[in-house]
């Protein structure tokens, strides 16, 4: 593997707790739980002021219009001789990294109530804002057309909620020993704050949860996450909505995928992917799923990593098989047991280690930053920011966009 990472990082100072990129805004929470917004054009304005036009263009492709980079047009253009070289020539040769401090853009406070407790996770979806904290799960709204409008903050659940996901018109909250909770999204835009909370418990225990396509993985203390197959209905998408055409109406009973996963790991041993470690017996030290990027599951096994793909077609059984694009992953020098957390990042994974953040890509692993971070936010379900990373650091927030050549 001789791939190289080219990265642009924009650093905004401040003592922040969490952040999101949503439509044309950067949304931030201060450490005392107050919400702020910063229009993206306030950031790009400063890039323009640097009188280095390529940086503004790079920021568009890598961060603010990340959907361009993922487009077929971009891919076809980059297949032409010399285009990729011209693109990467804008980065410093030695580091491949451009770092720009953004110190002239000031986030604007929103007068909404502060989030009680310490913010543990958040999700923004279709102008709905859900925040899990040590004191519960809270809902507010964000209207990109009136970004500084004050909205009520409604307490939806009293339990400590460590992970929140929102998608397919559903909200899922992991509340530890209180379980995994699910609610259909409140579609009322008028008096939504008056609507009663209708969260239902769908699993007894949950440390975290993550979408695998339209289905849900529930992470517990077990080696494998529980698999919750969703029940859905179709809706006609509206032009202005970010909602998908399918809406989750509920989940079937949590299923154990341990046997399936173990079988996928052992069968890949027999089919052989050029990995000598597969000669070791699986019973010596069992595999454990560390996290997922959509339907790709990152697995720790025998002191190395594997990627297993889950597939579920309508009315068929769940299937699992080794991901061929990650055949070389077992050779990476990453201690799987040093991985603190895993985040979906396009078709790749972002892994958080104790003192650094790494990108695990089919072409290798790359260090994004060498320090502990308070929070890593990726936007795998976003069209516009699909391969953008937001890092909450000790004294600021960084936006990272990258290109692997």
């Amino acid at each position: 593997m001789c791939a190289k990472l080219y990265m642009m990082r924009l650093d905004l100072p401040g003592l922040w707790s969490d952040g999101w990129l949503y439509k044309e805004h950067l949304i931030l929470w201060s450490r005392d739980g107050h919400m702020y917004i910063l229009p993206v054009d306030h950031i790009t304005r400063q890039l323009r002021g640097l009188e280095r036009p390529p940086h503004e263009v790079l920021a568009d492709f890598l961060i603010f219009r990340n959907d361009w980079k993922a487009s077929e047009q971009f891919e076809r253009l980059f297949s032409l001789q010399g285009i990729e070289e011209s693109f990467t020539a804008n980065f410093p040769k030695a580091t491949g990294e451009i770092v720009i401090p953004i110190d002239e853009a000031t986030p604007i406070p929103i007068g909404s109530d502060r989030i009680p407790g310490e913010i543990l996770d958040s999700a923004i979806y279709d102008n709905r804002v859900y925040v899990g904290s040590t004191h519960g799960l809270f809902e507010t709204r964000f209207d990109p057309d009136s970004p500084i409008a004050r909205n009520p903050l409604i307490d939806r659940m009293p339990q400590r909620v460590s992970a929140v996901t929102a998608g397919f018109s559903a909200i899922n909250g992991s509340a530890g020993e209180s379980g995994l909770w699910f609610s259909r999204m409140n579609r009322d835009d008028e008096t939504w704050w008056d609507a009663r909370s209708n969260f239902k418990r769908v699993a007894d225990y949950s440390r975290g949860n993550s979408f695998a396509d339209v289905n849900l993985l529930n992470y517990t203390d077990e080696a494998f996450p529980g698999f919750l197959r969703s029940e859905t209905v179709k809706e006609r998408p509206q032009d202005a909505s970010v909602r998908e055409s399918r809406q989750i109406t509920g989940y079937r009973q949590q299923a154990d995928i341990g046997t399936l996963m173990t079988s996928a790991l052992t069968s890949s041993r027999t089919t052989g992917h050029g990995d000598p470690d597969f000669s070791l017996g699986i019973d010596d030290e069992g595999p454990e799923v560390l996290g997922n990027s959509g339907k790709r599951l990152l697995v720790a096994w025998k002191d190395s990593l594997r990627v297993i793909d889950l597939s579920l077609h309508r009315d068929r059984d769940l299937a699992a098989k080794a991901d061929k694009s990650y055949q070389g992953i077992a050779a990476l020098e990453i201690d799987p047991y040093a991985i603190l957390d895993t985040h979906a990042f396009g078709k790749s994974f972002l892994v958080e280690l104790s003192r650094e953040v790494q990108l695990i890509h089919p072409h290798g692993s790359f260090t994004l930053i060498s320090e502990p971070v308070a929070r890593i936010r990726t936007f795998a379900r976003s069209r516009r920011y699909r391969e953008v990373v937001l890092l909450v650091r000790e004294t600021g927030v960084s936006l990272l966009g990258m290109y692997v050549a």
Partner: protein
Amino acid sequence: MTVSDDSPSAARRCRQLGPPRDGGVLFESCGNSPYKSLDVHRSQSGTKQPKSIWNSELSRADECHTFCEAELNEWSDENGNCWAVAKDGEMDFGTHEERVAFFWEPQNDGDPWHGFPVAGRRGLAFRQKLPDALIERWYESGLISFSRKMQMLKGRW
């Protein structure tokens, strides 16, 4: 954790009570509690739980002193078990970058305490819950940064 001889706690170091025996080394902690550094948490060969081994650069006396810090500062949970944290910048407690240690409260009077490095992350997840209040205390006292605090609150430790 390393302890320099001129530290305020140097006079309260653990005292070894004899040669290794019965699977460990017995100490008297600075709080006068018996503490046993168990062989099974000192080397991979001594245990079937290879994920919970003290960092070899941390001596048995330092291991006991880690317990002392927890005992003296009353870093305990609702069940009476003690927890300790590696101060930012100091060495990891465990061989898999564990930065927290856990000490079981003895079941019977006179039994020694014992402890080992623990982590909350997947792959190593320890089933006892690290109390939020302890994390906040460690942060407030400057032992851990905001980033470490958030990692711990989220179970990424």
